[in-house]
């Protein structure tokens, strides 16, 4: 089961869950993913220490995709 989670004031919220053998769930996840990007979130797939990739299309084979806000200098 793959998950799309958004970091927010609750800790994190699961926005979508899907498996590759469930096309309607994948389609719903893609739509939710685009909506979150439109809301200003960045999507990241962490690949272990030192590595993460920002993605603009939902990587449907990733187990976890995290949505984060942009950072800014303080």
């Amino acid at each position: 089961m793959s998950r799309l989670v958004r970091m927010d004031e609750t800790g994190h919220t699961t926005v979508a869950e899907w498996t590759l053998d469930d096309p309607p769930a994948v389609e719903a996840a893609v739509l939710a993913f685009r909506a979150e990007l439109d809301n200003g979130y960045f999507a990241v797939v962490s690949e272990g220490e030192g590595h993460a990739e920002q993605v603009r299309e939902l990587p449907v084979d990733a187990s976890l995709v995290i949505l984060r806000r942009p950072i800014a200098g303080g």
Partner: protein
Amino acid sequence: MLTRTGRLWTVSTVAHAVPFIAGAVALTVLLPVLAPVSLLLLIHAWVIPELYASRGAKVLRPRPRASAGAECVALGLLGDLLDHGSRELQARTGVALERGRFGVWLLGQTGALLVRPGGRRVDCYCVKVPDASLPPSDRIAHLLLALRTDEVGFATVANLSFSGARWRVRRRLAATAREALDVAGAEARRR
């Protein structure tokens, strides 16, 4: 880029301190009766770099905790992103350790501290996710993911608040952050 920035900070610190030291020496030699004034000048020469270091240390200052439930959820996600050693360190100190190309990073809620290879110099960055509603661990996770995605971009977006000797910053940190800095320093010395 970071090496040049570090050198500029060193030059700036020297430029701040040397006139006071020179003035103190000159006064003492020319008019020994003004030795107390010379002492004041020397104190100035010492205090100015200390104030910069104090500003740098603020990047790892602990912040008030959010609601326990949200923080617990956020902590779970952050723990999943960290390796075993970093997870344990974060649990003890509230600071996440991340090894990068530029050195060893310590990530707090409102900033990051980079221990450069060799472990003697640190760069303190003010950087945060501008959303006050996020629980502390989510704030750290934001910085962690941004750093992992683009280390150069991270160091560019962040505001450098201090660059200099690790010992100067260490004295200004809370005990827990000091422990994290020691671990990062040991890690950086091995690089």
